[in-house]
Protein backbone atom coordinates (compact mmCIF):
# COMPACT_ATOMS: atom_id res chain seq x y z
CA UNK A 1 0.00 0.00 0.00
CA UNK A 2 1.13 3.52 -0.82
CA UNK A 3 1.25 5.22 2.54
CA UNK A 4 1.56 8.93 3.12
CA UNK A 5 0.80 9.60 -0.54
CA UNK A 6 -0.28 13.18 -1.16
CA UNK A 7 -2.67 12.16 -3.89
CA UNK A 8 -5.41 9.62 -3.45
CA UNK A 9 -6.48 10.70 0.02
CA UNK A 10 -10.05 10.95 1.17
CA UNK A 11 -10.29 14.40 2.72
CA UNK A 12 -13.76 14.44 4.26
CA UNK A 13 -16.11 11.84 5.61
CA UNK A 14 -18.71 13.10 3.14
CA UNK A 15 -16.49 11.78 0.36
CA UNK A 16 -16.73 8.27 1.77
CA UNK A 17 -19.51 6.53 -0.14
CA UNK A 18 -20.44 3.94 2.41
CA UNK A 19 -20.14 3.82 6.19
CA UNK A 20 -20.99 0.50 7.82
CA UNK A 21 -21.39 0.12 11.55
CA UNK A 22 -20.11 -3.42 12.03
CA UNK A 23 -21.13 -3.58 15.68
CA UNK A 24 -24.46 -1.81 16.17
CA UNK A 25 -26.10 -2.87 19.39
CA UNK A 26 -29.69 -3.36 20.22
CA UNK A 27 -30.67 -3.47 23.89
CA UNK A 28 -33.09 -6.31 24.38
CA UNK A 29 -34.90 -7.00 27.64
CA UNK A 30 -35.89 -10.45 28.85
CA UNK A 31 -39.53 -9.34 28.80
CA UNK A 32 -39.25 -8.43 25.13
CA UNK A 33 -37.77 -11.83 24.33
CA UNK A 34 -40.34 -13.79 26.32
CA UNK A 35 -43.02 -12.57 23.94
CA UNK A 36 -41.17 -14.40 21.18
CA UNK A 37 -40.71 -17.75 22.93
CA UNK A 38 -42.29 -20.51 20.92
CA UNK A 39 -45.50 -21.99 22.33
CA UNK A 40 -43.87 -25.43 22.59
CA UNK A 41 -41.43 -23.93 25.07
CA UNK A 42 -44.08 -22.55 27.41
CA UNK A 43 -42.71 -24.51 30.37
CA UNK A 44 -39.27 -22.96 30.03
CA UNK A 45 -40.83 -19.54 29.41
CA UNK A 46 -42.63 -19.87 32.75
CA UNK A 47 -39.41 -20.81 34.53
CA UNK A 48 -37.65 -17.77 33.07
CA UNK A 49 -40.63 -15.55 33.96
CA UNK A 50 -40.49 -16.82 37.53
CA UNK A 51 -36.96 -15.55 38.01
CA UNK A 52 -36.98 -12.49 40.25
CA UNK A 53 -33.82 -11.31 38.53
CA UNK A 54 -33.45 -13.15 35.22
CA UNK A 55 -30.14 -11.43 34.45
CA UNK A 56 -28.75 -13.20 37.53
CA UNK A 57 -30.95 -16.25 38.01
CA UNK A 58 -31.15 -17.31 34.36
CA UNK A 59 -28.14 -15.50 32.93
CA UNK A 60 -25.23 -15.09 35.34
CA UNK A 61 -24.52 -11.44 34.73
CA UNK A 62 -22.71 -9.90 37.70
CA UNK A 63 -20.71 -6.73 37.21
CA UNK A 64 -18.25 -5.74 39.99
CA UNK A 65 -19.96 -2.35 40.18
CA UNK A 66 -22.81 -1.00 38.02
CA UNK A 67 -21.74 -0.46 34.42
CA UNK A 68 -21.29 3.02 32.98
CA UNK A 69 -22.52 5.05 35.92
CA UNK A 70 -23.66 8.60 35.11
CA UNK A 71 -23.37 8.14 31.33
CA UNK A 72 -26.86 8.36 29.95
CA UNK A 73 -26.65 10.10 26.59
CA UNK A 74 -28.70 7.25 25.16
CA UNK A 75 -30.46 6.15 28.34
CA UNK A 76 -29.53 3.34 30.68
CA UNK A 77 -28.68 0.48 28.36
CA UNK A 78 -29.80 -2.11 30.86
CA UNK A 79 -33.18 -0.77 31.93
CA UNK A 80 -34.55 1.87 29.56
CA UNK A 81 -33.83 -0.19 26.45
CA UNK A 82 -32.70 2.85 24.42
CA UNK A 83 -32.18 0.83 21.27
CA UNK A 84 -34.90 -1.66 21.92
CA UNK A 85 -36.74 -0.46 18.84
CA UNK A 86 -36.15 0.06 15.15
CA UNK A 87 -37.02 3.76 15.44
CA UNK A 88 -34.28 4.30 18.01
CA UNK A 89 -31.70 2.51 15.89
CA UNK A 90 -32.75 4.47 12.81
CA UNK A 91 -32.39 7.71 14.80
CA UNK A 92 -28.83 6.77 15.78
CA UNK A 93 -27.99 5.91 12.18
CA UNK A 94 -29.33 9.26 11.04
CA UNK A 95 -27.53 11.25 13.73
CA UNK A 96 -24.17 9.62 12.99
CA UNK A 97 -24.73 9.17 9.24
CA UNK A 98 -24.36 5.40 9.23
CA UNK A 99 -25.48 3.76 5.99
CA UNK A 100 -25.62 0.21 7.29
CA UNK A 101 -25.87 -1.37 10.72
CA UNK A 102 -24.85 -4.92 11.57
CA UNK A 103 -26.70 -5.59 14.80
CA UNK A 104 -25.32 -7.12 17.98
CA UNK A 105 -27.22 -7.99 21.15
CA UNK A 106 -26.51 -6.55 24.58
CA UNK A 107 -27.90 -8.86 27.26
CA UNK A 108 -27.31 -11.85 25.02
CA UNK A 109 -23.61 -11.15 24.82
CA UNK A 110 -23.92 -13.05 28.10
CA UNK A 111 -25.80 -15.98 26.60
CA UNK A 112 -22.87 -18.28 27.42
CA UNK A 113 -23.54 -17.59 31.12
CA UNK A 114 -26.99 -19.22 31.06
CA UNK A 115 -26.59 -22.30 33.23
CA UNK A 116 -29.51 -24.25 31.82
CA UNK A 117 -28.71 -25.30 28.26
CA UNK A 118 -32.37 -25.64 27.29
CA UNK A 119 -33.09 -22.14 28.54
CA UNK A 120 -30.11 -20.85 26.55
CA UNK A 121 -31.48 -22.42 23.37
CA UNK A 122 -34.97 -21.00 24.00
CA UNK A 123 -33.56 -17.52 24.66
CA UNK A 124 -31.36 -17.63 21.55
CA UNK A 125 -34.31 -18.63 19.37
CA UNK A 126 -36.47 -15.93 20.95
CA UNK A 127 -33.78 -13.30 20.44
CA UNK A 128 -33.44 -14.20 16.76
CA UNK A 129 -37.21 -14.12 16.24
CA UNK A 130 -37.42 -10.76 18.06
CA UNK A 131 -34.56 -9.07 16.27
CA UNK A 132 -35.65 -10.26 12.83
CA UNK A 133 -39.24 -9.20 13.49
CA UNK A 134 -38.48 -5.84 15.07
CA UNK A 135 -35.41 -4.61 13.17
CA UNK A 136 -35.18 -6.10 9.71
CA UNK A 137 -37.40 -5.33 6.76
CA UNK A 138 -37.79 -7.28 3.56
CA UNK A 139 -35.95 -5.71 0.67
CA UNK A 140 -34.00 -3.33 2.93
CA UNK A 141 -30.50 -4.42 3.87
CA UNK A 142 -29.49 -1.23 5.70
CA UNK A 143 -30.04 -3.08 8.98
CA UNK A 144 -28.96 -6.69 9.10
CA UNK A 145 -28.45 -9.11 11.94
CA UNK A 146 -26.40 -12.16 12.71
CA UNK A 147 -28.09 -15.28 14.01
CA UNK A 148 -27.10 -15.41 17.69
CA UNK A 149 -26.32 -18.93 18.84
CA UNK A 150 -26.07 -20.60 22.26
CA UNK A 151 -22.46 -21.83 22.48
CA UNK A 152 -23.28 -24.27 25.29
CA UNK A 153 -25.36 -26.38 22.86
CA UNK A 154 -23.42 -26.62 19.57
CA UNK A 155 -25.75 -29.17 17.97
CA UNK A 156 -28.79 -26.99 18.67
CA UNK A 157 -26.82 -23.93 17.58
CA UNK A 158 -26.19 -25.59 14.23
CA UNK A 159 -29.93 -26.21 13.85
CA UNK A 160 -30.61 -22.55 14.60
CA UNK A 161 -28.08 -21.53 11.94
CA UNK A 162 -29.68 -23.88 9.40
CA UNK A 163 -33.19 -22.67 10.28
CA UNK A 164 -32.35 -18.96 10.02
CA UNK A 165 -29.35 -18.81 7.73
CA UNK A 166 -31.29 -18.07 4.56
CA UNK A 167 -33.76 -15.64 6.08
CA UNK A 168 -34.01 -12.14 4.75
CA UNK A 169 -32.10 -9.86 7.10
CA UNK A 170 -29.53 -12.45 8.23
CA UNK A 171 -25.91 -11.69 7.34
CA UNK A 172 -23.77 -13.68 9.81
CA UNK A 173 -23.63 -15.94 12.85
CA UNK A 174 -22.75 -14.42 16.22
CA UNK A 175 -21.06 -16.30 19.05
CA UNK A 176 -21.32 -14.64 22.47
CA UNK A 177 -17.63 -15.17 23.10
CA UNK A 178 -16.71 -14.33 26.69
CA UNK A 179 -16.81 -17.21 29.12
CA UNK A 180 -16.72 -19.98 26.53
CA UNK A 181 -16.04 -23.32 28.17
CA UNK A 182 -14.33 -25.04 26.46
CA UNK A 183 -12.64 -22.30 24.44
CA UNK A 184 -13.59 -21.94 20.77
CA UNK A 185 -10.69 -23.95 19.32
CA UNK A 186 -12.19 -27.11 20.80
CA UNK A 187 -13.81 -29.60 18.41
CA UNK A 188 -16.94 -29.33 20.59
CA UNK A 189 -17.83 -26.31 18.41
CA UNK A 190 -17.34 -28.05 15.06
CA UNK A 191 -21.12 -28.25 14.38
CA UNK A 192 -21.27 -24.44 14.63
CA UNK A 193 -18.33 -23.94 12.28
CA UNK A 194 -19.73 -26.49 9.82
CA UNK A 195 -23.17 -24.88 9.82
CA UNK A 196 -21.76 -21.37 9.34
CA UNK A 197 -19.57 -22.59 6.49
CA UNK A 198 -22.45 -24.53 4.89
CA UNK A 199 -24.67 -21.44 5.05
CA UNK A 200 -21.93 -19.18 3.69
CA UNK A 201 -22.10 -16.87 6.70
CA UNK A 202 -19.20 -15.12 8.48
CA UNK A 203 -18.81 -15.98 12.13
CA UNK A 204 -18.73 -13.11 14.63
CA UNK A 205 -17.14 -13.33 18.07
CA UNK A 206 -18.33 -10.60 20.41
CA UNK A 207 -16.95 -10.41 23.92
CA UNK A 208 -18.94 -9.00 26.81
CA UNK A 209 -18.38 -7.63 30.28
CA UNK A 210 -21.62 -9.19 31.50
CA UNK A 211 -20.12 -12.65 31.13
CA UNK A 212 -17.28 -12.42 33.61
CA UNK A 213 -18.90 -13.61 36.83
CA UNK A 214 -17.24 -17.01 36.96
CA UNK A 215 -15.18 -17.72 33.91
CA UNK A 216 -11.89 -16.50 32.48
CA UNK A 217 -10.77 -13.91 31.49
CA UNK A 218 -11.87 -11.56 34.29
CA UNK A 219 -13.41 -13.00 37.43
CA UNK A 220 -15.81 -10.65 39.20
CA UNK A 221 -14.61 -11.76 42.62
CA UNK A 222 -11.28 -10.03 42.27
CA UNK A 223 -12.16 -7.05 40.14
CA UNK A 224 -13.38 -4.32 42.46
CA UNK A 225 -14.74 -1.90 39.91
CA UNK A 226 -16.41 -2.12 36.52
CA UNK A 227 -13.56 -0.14 34.96
CA UNK A 228 -11.08 -2.92 35.74
CA UNK A 229 -13.41 -5.57 34.42
CA UNK A 230 -14.40 -3.76 31.25
CA UNK A 231 -10.91 -2.56 30.34
CA UNK A 232 -9.52 -6.09 30.12
CA UNK A 233 -12.42 -8.40 29.36
CA UNK A 234 -12.60 -7.51 25.68
CA UNK A 235 -8.91 -7.81 24.70
CA UNK A 236 -8.31 -10.78 27.03
CA UNK A 237 -11.30 -12.62 25.57
CA UNK A 238 -10.15 -11.87 22.04
CA UNK A 239 -6.55 -12.94 22.67
CA UNK A 240 -7.60 -16.15 24.38
CA UNK A 241 -10.16 -17.04 21.72
CA UNK A 242 -7.85 -16.23 18.82
CA UNK A 243 -5.04 -18.28 20.36
CA UNK A 244 -7.33 -21.25 20.94
CA UNK A 245 -8.80 -21.12 17.44
CA UNK A 246 -5.47 -20.74 15.67
CA UNK A 247 -3.48 -23.33 17.57
CA UNK A 248 -6.34 -25.81 17.32
CA UNK A 249 -6.36 -25.09 13.57
CA UNK A 250 -9.97 -23.90 13.22
CA UNK A 251 -9.25 -21.64 10.21
CA UNK A 252 -7.21 -24.41 8.57
CA UNK A 253 -10.05 -26.86 9.07
CA UNK A 254 -12.67 -24.38 7.81
CA UNK A 255 -10.83 -22.54 5.04
CA UNK A 256 -14.01 -20.99 3.61
CA UNK A 257 -15.04 -19.37 6.90
CA UNK A 258 -14.46 -15.71 7.63
CA UNK A 259 -14.14 -14.74 11.28
CA UNK A 260 -14.88 -11.31 12.76
CA UNK A 261 -13.75 -10.31 16.25
CA UNK A 262 -15.71 -7.42 17.72
CA UNK A 263 -15.11 -4.79 20.37
CA UNK A 264 -11.53 -5.32 21.45
CA UNK A 265 -9.98 -2.37 19.59
CA UNK A 266 -6.87 -2.76 17.44
CA UNK A 267 -3.72 -2.53 19.56
CA UNK A 268 -3.74 -6.13 20.77
CA UNK A 269 -3.69 -7.56 17.25
CA UNK A 270 -0.03 -7.03 16.15
CA UNK A 271 1.24 -8.11 19.56
CA UNK A 272 -0.82 -11.29 19.44
CA UNK A 273 0.18 -12.09 15.85
CA UNK A 274 3.87 -11.73 16.67
CA UNK A 275 3.50 -13.83 19.79
CA UNK A 276 1.59 -16.62 18.07
CA UNK A 277 4.04 -16.75 15.15
CA UNK A 278 6.88 -16.98 17.62
CA UNK A 279 5.25 -19.87 19.48
CA UNK A 280 4.32 -21.60 16.23
CA UNK A 281 7.98 -21.67 15.17
CA UNK A 282 9.37 -22.54 18.59
CA UNK A 283 6.85 -25.24 19.53
CA UNK A 284 6.02 -26.54 16.09
CA UNK A 285 5.41 -30.15 17.12
CA UNK A 286 2.39 -28.94 19.13
CA UNK A 287 0.66 -27.25 16.20
CA UNK A 288 0.79 -29.69 13.29
CA UNK A 289 -2.65 -28.63 12.07
CA UNK A 290 -1.44 -25.32 10.66
CA UNK A 291 0.06 -25.07 7.19
CA UNK A 292 1.31 -21.49 7.49
CA UNK A 293 2.14 -18.88 10.09
CA UNK A 294 -0.76 -18.03 12.42
CA UNK A 295 -0.50 -14.40 11.32
CA UNK A 296 -1.14 -15.47 7.73
CA UNK A 297 -4.39 -17.16 8.76
CA UNK A 298 -5.30 -13.93 10.54
CA UNK A 299 -4.51 -11.92 7.41
CA UNK A 300 -6.55 -14.26 5.20
CA UNK A 301 -9.58 -15.17 7.32
CA UNK A 302 -10.01 -12.67 10.17
CA UNK A 303 -11.31 -9.13 10.36
CA UNK A 304 -11.66 -6.99 13.45
CA UNK A 305 -14.02 -4.17 14.32
CA UNK A 306 -12.24 -1.02 15.43
CA UNK A 307 -14.18 0.20 18.43
CA UNK A 308 -13.04 1.09 21.07
CA UNK A 309 -10.06 2.83 19.50
CA UNK A 310 -8.75 4.11 22.82
CA UNK A 311 -7.47 7.51 23.81
CA UNK A 312 -4.11 8.45 22.32
CA UNK A 313 -3.80 11.84 23.99
CA UNK A 314 -1.59 14.26 22.09
CA UNK A 315 -0.52 11.60 19.59
CA UNK A 316 -3.52 10.64 17.43
CA UNK A 317 -1.13 9.69 14.62
CA UNK A 318 -0.06 6.70 16.70
CA UNK A 319 -3.41 5.11 16.03
CA UNK A 320 -2.82 5.31 12.27
CA UNK A 321 0.60 3.70 12.78
CA UNK A 322 -1.00 0.92 14.79
CA UNK A 323 -3.55 0.37 12.04
CA UNK A 324 -0.72 0.06 9.52
CA UNK A 325 0.76 -2.68 11.72
CA UNK A 326 -2.54 -4.55 11.88
CA UNK A 327 -3.26 -4.15 8.17
CA UNK A 328 -6.16 -1.79 7.35
CA UNK A 329 -7.68 -4.37 5.02
CA UNK A 330 -8.47 -6.47 8.11
CA UNK A 331 -10.27 -3.72 10.02
CA UNK A 332 -13.88 -2.54 9.89
CA UNK A 333 -15.34 0.54 11.53
CA UNK A 334 -17.85 -0.06 14.31
CA UNK A 335 -19.70 2.39 16.56
CA UNK A 336 -20.93 0.18 19.43
CA UNK A 337 -23.90 2.53 19.75
CA UNK A 338 -25.78 3.00 22.00
CA UNK A 339 -23.23 1.86 24.57
CA UNK A 340 -21.49 4.74 26.37
CA UNK A 341 -18.02 3.88 25.05
CA UNK A 342 -19.09 4.24 21.41
CA UNK A 343 -16.92 5.69 18.60
CA UNK A 344 -18.63 7.97 16.06
CA UNK A 345 -17.27 7.51 12.50
CA UNK A 346 -15.14 10.66 12.80
CA UNK A 347 -13.21 9.14 15.69
CA UNK A 348 -11.68 6.67 13.25
CA UNK A 349 -11.81 8.72 10.06
CA UNK A 350 -10.08 11.81 11.44
CA UNK A 351 -7.13 9.78 12.65
CA UNK A 352 -6.53 7.81 9.46
CA UNK A 353 -7.44 10.18 6.61
CA UNK A 354 -4.05 11.92 6.50
CA UNK A 355 -2.05 8.74 6.92
CA UNK A 356 -3.68 6.02 4.86
CA UNK A 357 -4.60 6.05 1.20
CA UNK A 358 -8.09 6.35 -0.17
CA UNK A 359 -8.61 2.63 -0.68
CA UNK A 360 -7.60 1.78 2.87
CA UNK A 361 -9.80 4.48 4.37
CA UNK A 362 -12.85 3.53 2.34
CA UNK A 363 -12.27 -0.12 3.12
CA UNK A 364 -12.15 0.47 6.84
CA UNK A 365 -15.13 2.83 6.91
CA UNK A 366 -17.40 0.47 5.03
CA UNK A 367 -16.30 -1.30 1.87
CA UNK A 368 -14.62 -4.23 3.61
CA UNK A 369 -17.82 -4.78 5.60
CA UNK A 370 -19.81 -4.68 2.35
CA UNK A 371 -17.72 -7.66 1.20
CA UNK A 372 -17.71 -9.54 4.50
CA UNK A 373 -21.46 -9.22 5.08
CA UNK A 374 -22.52 -9.37 1.44
CA UNK A 375 -24.23 -5.96 1.46
CA UNK A 376 -25.68 -4.69 -1.79
Amino acid at each position, binding site marked *: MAQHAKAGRTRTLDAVDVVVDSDAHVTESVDQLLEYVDERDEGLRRIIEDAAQPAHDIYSVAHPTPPFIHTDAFGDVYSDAPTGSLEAKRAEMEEFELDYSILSPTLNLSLATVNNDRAAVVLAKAYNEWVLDQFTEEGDDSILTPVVIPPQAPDKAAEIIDDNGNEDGVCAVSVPSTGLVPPPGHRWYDPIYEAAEDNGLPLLFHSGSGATADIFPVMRKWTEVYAEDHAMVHPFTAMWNLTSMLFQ*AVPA*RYPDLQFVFQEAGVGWIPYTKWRLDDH*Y*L*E*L*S*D*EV*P*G*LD*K*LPSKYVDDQFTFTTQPLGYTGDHPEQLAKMIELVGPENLMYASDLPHPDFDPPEELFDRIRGHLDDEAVRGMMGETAVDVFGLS
Partner: protein
Amino acid sequence: MSGVRYRVATASEVAEPGDRVIADIEGQEVAVFNVDGDLHALPNFCPHQAAPLCEGEVTGRMVMGDDGWSWEYVQRGEVVTCPWHGWKFDVTTGKNIKDEDVAIPSYDVERDGDDVLVVR
Protein backbone atom coordinates in the same frame (compact mmCIF):
# COMPACT_ATOMS: atom_id res chain seq x y z
CA MET B 1 29.95 -27.90 -10.32
CA SER B 2 31.03 -24.36 -9.48
CA GLY B 3 32.16 -23.19 -6.08
CA VAL B 4 35.21 -23.86 -3.98
CA ARG B 5 35.69 -27.30 -2.45
CA TYR B 6 36.71 -27.51 1.19
CA ARG B 7 37.79 -30.69 2.92
CA VAL B 8 35.73 -30.84 6.12
CA ALA B 9 35.90 -34.44 7.31
CA THR B 10 37.07 -37.95 6.60
CA ALA B 11 34.55 -40.40 5.23
CA SER B 12 34.67 -42.46 8.41
CA GLU B 13 33.61 -39.48 10.53
CA VAL B 14 30.24 -39.31 8.75
CA ALA B 15 29.97 -42.94 7.70
CA GLU B 16 26.77 -43.81 9.58
CA PRO B 17 23.28 -42.32 9.45
CA GLY B 18 23.04 -39.83 12.32
CA ASP B 19 26.75 -38.94 12.19
CA ARG B 20 27.51 -35.25 12.17
CA VAL B 21 30.67 -33.16 11.86
CA ILE B 22 30.99 -29.42 12.32
CA ALA B 23 33.99 -27.94 10.49
CA ASP B 24 35.44 -24.47 10.11
CA ILE B 25 35.57 -23.07 6.59
CA GLU B 26 37.50 -19.82 6.61
CA GLY B 27 35.77 -18.69 9.79
CA GLN B 28 32.33 -20.06 8.95
CA GLU B 29 31.13 -23.15 10.77
CA VAL B 30 29.53 -25.68 8.45
CA ALA B 31 27.92 -28.93 9.56
CA VAL B 32 27.79 -32.14 7.56
CA PHE B 33 25.01 -34.58 8.44
CA ASN B 34 24.57 -38.18 7.35
CA VAL B 35 20.84 -38.68 6.69
CA ASP B 36 20.06 -42.23 5.58
CA GLY B 37 23.47 -42.53 3.99
CA ASP B 38 23.33 -39.23 2.10
CA LEU B 39 25.49 -36.29 3.20
CA HIS B 40 24.04 -32.80 3.60
CA ALA B 41 25.81 -29.60 4.66
CA LEU B 42 24.35 -26.53 6.34
CA PRO B 43 25.85 -23.45 7.98
CA ASN B 44 25.90 -23.75 11.75
CA PHE B 45 23.73 -20.67 12.03
CA CYS B 46 20.10 -20.07 12.88
CA PRO B 47 18.57 -17.09 11.06
CA HIS B 48 16.28 -16.47 14.04
CA GLN B 49 18.75 -15.20 16.63
CA ALA B 50 22.14 -16.39 15.35
CA ALA B 51 22.34 -19.56 17.42
CA PRO B 52 24.60 -22.53 16.58
CA LEU B 53 21.70 -24.32 14.89
CA CYS B 54 23.51 -27.47 13.85
CA GLU B 55 24.56 -28.35 17.38
CA GLY B 56 20.93 -29.07 18.16
CA GLU B 57 19.13 -32.39 18.39
CA VAL B 58 18.34 -34.20 15.15
CA THR B 59 14.69 -35.18 15.35
CA GLY B 60 11.63 -35.84 13.26
CA ARG B 61 8.61 -33.60 13.01
CA MET B 62 4.90 -33.76 13.79
CA VAL B 63 2.35 -33.55 11.01
CA MET B 64 -1.43 -33.87 10.94
CA GLY B 65 -2.58 -37.23 9.63
CA ASP B 66 -4.87 -37.52 6.63
CA ASP B 67 -7.73 -38.34 8.99
CA GLY B 68 -7.49 -34.83 10.46
CA TRP B 69 -7.12 -36.28 13.91
CA SER B 70 -3.91 -38.22 14.42
CA TRP B 71 -0.59 -36.54 14.92
CA GLU B 72 2.03 -38.46 12.95
CA TYR B 73 5.75 -38.29 13.58
CA VAL B 74 7.63 -38.26 10.29
CA GLN B 75 11.05 -37.41 8.78
CA ARG B 76 12.91 -39.03 11.66
CA GLY B 77 16.57 -38.07 11.50
CA GLU B 78 15.95 -35.36 8.88
CA VAL B 79 15.19 -32.36 11.07
CA VAL B 80 17.64 -30.35 13.14
CA THR B 81 16.16 -28.50 16.10
CA CYS B 82 17.86 -25.29 17.14
CA PRO B 83 19.23 -25.63 20.68
CA TRP B 84 18.24 -22.07 21.59
CA HIS B 85 14.56 -21.66 20.65
CA GLY B 86 13.50 -24.88 18.99
CA TRP B 87 13.16 -23.69 15.41
CA LYS B 88 13.29 -26.74 13.17
CA PHE B 89 15.00 -27.00 9.79
CA ASP B 90 14.94 -29.75 7.19
CA VAL B 91 18.55 -30.94 7.03
CA THR B 92 18.14 -32.01 3.41
CA THR B 93 16.96 -28.60 2.15
CA GLY B 94 17.89 -25.97 4.74
CA LYS B 95 14.27 -24.78 4.91
CA ASN B 96 12.44 -24.08 8.14
CA ILE B 97 9.84 -26.83 8.41
CA LYS B 98 7.03 -24.42 9.37
CA ASP B 99 7.82 -21.43 7.19
CA GLU B 100 9.59 -22.00 3.88
CA ASP B 101 10.31 -18.27 3.63
CA VAL B 102 12.90 -18.89 6.34
CA ALA B 103 15.84 -20.91 5.07
CA ILE B 104 19.58 -21.31 5.32
CA PRO B 105 21.84 -22.41 2.46
CA SER B 106 22.19 -26.09 1.72
CA TYR B 107 25.68 -26.83 0.38
CA ASP B 108 26.58 -29.64 -1.95
CA VAL B 109 28.75 -32.38 -0.47
CA GLU B 110 31.14 -34.60 -2.43
CA ARG B 111 33.22 -37.60 -1.53
CA ASP B 112 36.75 -37.81 -2.88
CA GLY B 113 38.38 -41.02 -1.71
CA ASP B 114 38.55 -40.71 2.06
CA ASP B 115 37.84 -36.97 1.97
CA VAL B 116 34.44 -35.32 2.42
CA LEU B 117 34.25 -32.00 0.58
CA VAL B 118 31.77 -29.17 0.98
CA VAL B 119 31.20 -27.01 -2.08
CA ARG B 120 30.61 -23.42 -1.07
